[in-house]
């Protein structure tokens, strides 16, 4: 076990897998010699050479198009999109190509060996274009997997699992806690299961659900609530697609209440899918409406960032409203 922050865990995972399998290639804007604008790919080019870790020209649609072809050839492609806000030029390559490659060819060809890494999320004074949380756009794409870690241990285990999983995975990294989140990480390789939620804390009165950097927000809210004698069960979804509906429903059967928190705008955010599924599965168990504590339906603002964010106080208030329903 070594102490690392989330960024170091990512870097460590990449080194681990590149040492293990020479078919692994890492590329994107500034990921080469420089090691990426957040330094997630530091030293990779130095260690493994320019052929396996390289800069690409500045074109996201090209990066993912190239990655799709590379993966379909049999290489293991780990592509970085510098910011989640800049993944949209690649949206066609992801929706119509990455995700449909296997299906349209009857399984003859696939992009299963592709992993797309991208930092996402707000709280860093990044304004419209360095703050977005685009996971919900990808949750509507059959064929994709979406994974989001909340700490260094998950980051390494989930990234290794994503790279080895034979399906294209969008691996979203909560950049707000890149350095703030520090923890013990095994030096050797290990994998955490995709599609499974992580139980953070047991509780009886209400289930709180979030992912990435927002998990610590609901934890904070749960602490406040506990002072009011409210016992919160806390779940980190970890995988957005496919998502662990069973774990969430099991918890709701018990608590009878659900609150979902995400940074992305409310309307058609992923909380809507969770709420729609849970009201179906747990209809007779629900004692209050499923609460969604999310970003506003506006572009991500700068001056009003603090007010925009679904913080612990908004969450705490929603917990009380749900219990008092």
């Amino acid at each position, binding site marked *: 076990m070594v102490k690392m922050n989330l960024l170091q865990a990512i870097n460590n995972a990449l080194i681990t897998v590149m040492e293990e399998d020479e078919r692994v290639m890492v590329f994107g804007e500034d990921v080469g010699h420089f090691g990426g604008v957040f330094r997630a790919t530091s030293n990779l080019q130095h260690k493994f050479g320019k052929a396996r870790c390289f800069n690409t020209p500045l074109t996201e649609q090209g990066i993912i198009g*190239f990655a799709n*072809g590379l993966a379909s050839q049999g290489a293991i492609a780990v592509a970085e999109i510098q910011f989640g806000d800049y993944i949209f030029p690649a949206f066609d390559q992801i929706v119509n190509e990455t995700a449909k490659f296997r299906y*349209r*060819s009857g399984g003859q060809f696939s992009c299963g060996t592709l992993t797309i890494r991208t930092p996402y999320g707000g709280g860093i004074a990044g304004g419209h274009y360095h703050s977005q949380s685009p996971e919900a756009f990808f949750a509507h794409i059959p064929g994709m997997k979406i994974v989001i870690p909340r700490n260094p241990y998950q980051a390494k285990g989930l990234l290794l699992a994503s790279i080895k*999983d034979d399906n294209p995975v969008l691996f979203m990294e909560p950049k707000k806690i890149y350095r703030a989140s520090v923890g013990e990480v095994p030096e050797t390789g290990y994998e955490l299961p995709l599609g499974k939620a992580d139980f953070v804390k047991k509780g009886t009165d209400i289930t709180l659900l979030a992912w990435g950097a927002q998990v610590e927000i609901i934890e904070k809210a749960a602490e406040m609530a506990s002072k009011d004698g409210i016992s919160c069960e806390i779940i980190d979804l970890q995988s957005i697609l*496919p998502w662990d509906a069973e774990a969430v429903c099991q918890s709701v059967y018990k608590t009878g209440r659900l609150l979902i928190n995400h940074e992305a705008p409310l309307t058609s955010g992923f909380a809507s899918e969770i709420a729609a599924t849970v009201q179906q599965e747990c209809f007779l168990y629900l004692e209050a409406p499923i609460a969604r504590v999310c970003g506003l339906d506006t572009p991500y603002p700068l001056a009003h960032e603090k007010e925009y964010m679904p913080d612990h106080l908004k969450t705490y208030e929603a917990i009380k409203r749900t219990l008092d329903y």
Partner: protein
Amino acid sequence: MTDKLVKDRNHLSGIKMTNTVNIIDNGLIDIPMLQLLDEDGIQTDKNYALKLDKKTAVNIHYSMEYTRLLDDRMIGSQRQGRISFYLASRGEEAATVASAAALSELDMIMSQYREQGALVYRGYTTDQFMDQMFSNELDPNKGRQMPIHYGDKALNFMTISSPLGTQIPQASGYAYGQKMAGKQAITMCYFGEGAASEGDFHAGLNMAAVLNCPVIFFCRNNGYAISTPAEEQFAGDGIASRGIGYGVRTIRVDGNDVIAVYAATQHAREIALAENCPVLIEAMTYRLAAHSTSDDPSGYRSKDEEAKWQLKDPILRFAKWLDAKGWLDQAALDKFKEDTREQILSSLKRAEKVAINPIEDIIEDVYDTPPWHLQKQLTELKTHIQKYPQHYPKTSGRIK
């Protein structure tokens, strides 16, 4: 932080100075078109040493004839309502067949959709064509895409995707993978002059040049993108003139001249493989066919214009050359065409009777294995179909 890897750079090195404001424009270059057979099939340069043996020449000829027979028959079948859609390549057979002939079978082909000629040359069988077009369960693509979206891993022919231009950066990536895996093979990427307007074209060519990918970008400039003429598609000197901007070596060729297409592609492949670099080929041709069976060209071009191009028919031109060389066995050809017609017809009749994939297949290949939610959806679907079997006749009969 700085280590020895950082050498001083100068992005101005080699740039000359001038002190007159001189505008660079098209006029500056004009890219000639390689033509080795004139329109009467006579070799333009007697001394030119052709690297084309009789066997290959005849294969090319037969593949072109086959392609046209297939096109004609399938347009007919679509009219009869037997298939939902077809897209013919009349007039472009030399561009697709002769270029494929210059490749190794190990080279990956990533095509747009009008390159059935290349697939024919590779040895895709009549049954395979029919099974795909009738989207029956014998189609390895499992009947999931519209007719003409062929694909065959065994033949190194990537399954076709409708969105235009997407295969271009993919070809760069595929070729990079071939290079890294030490394969003695390149990637052949076909596309139309219309698709070359997509952002993916820009990304694909630039990345291939910068990342040294052994790929041939083969553009069929056939004058139209559905109804949009080339003059409304771009203002430059075709697609070839763009190669320069990417630092990609470029050849423009008469796309209706088998010999020229073959020679150019052979040459391009040698360079791409030897030097790990991309080469751009622009084949000047004409889409004699309608865009597809959903299209009616009379809405946007004249019969006279089409007539002019009928005269440049690539098959006729090549036949004349073969004949002059004494390589044309008319009797054998007639028999081949006769047999092909029958073969297509009987295979068609066979294929349209073959069942589509069982319903269980609908959730396969979305992922490597179907996750819980797809399994749930399938279970519900099966129960539903069993409740209304007559409404889902194609699948209700064989639910497991």
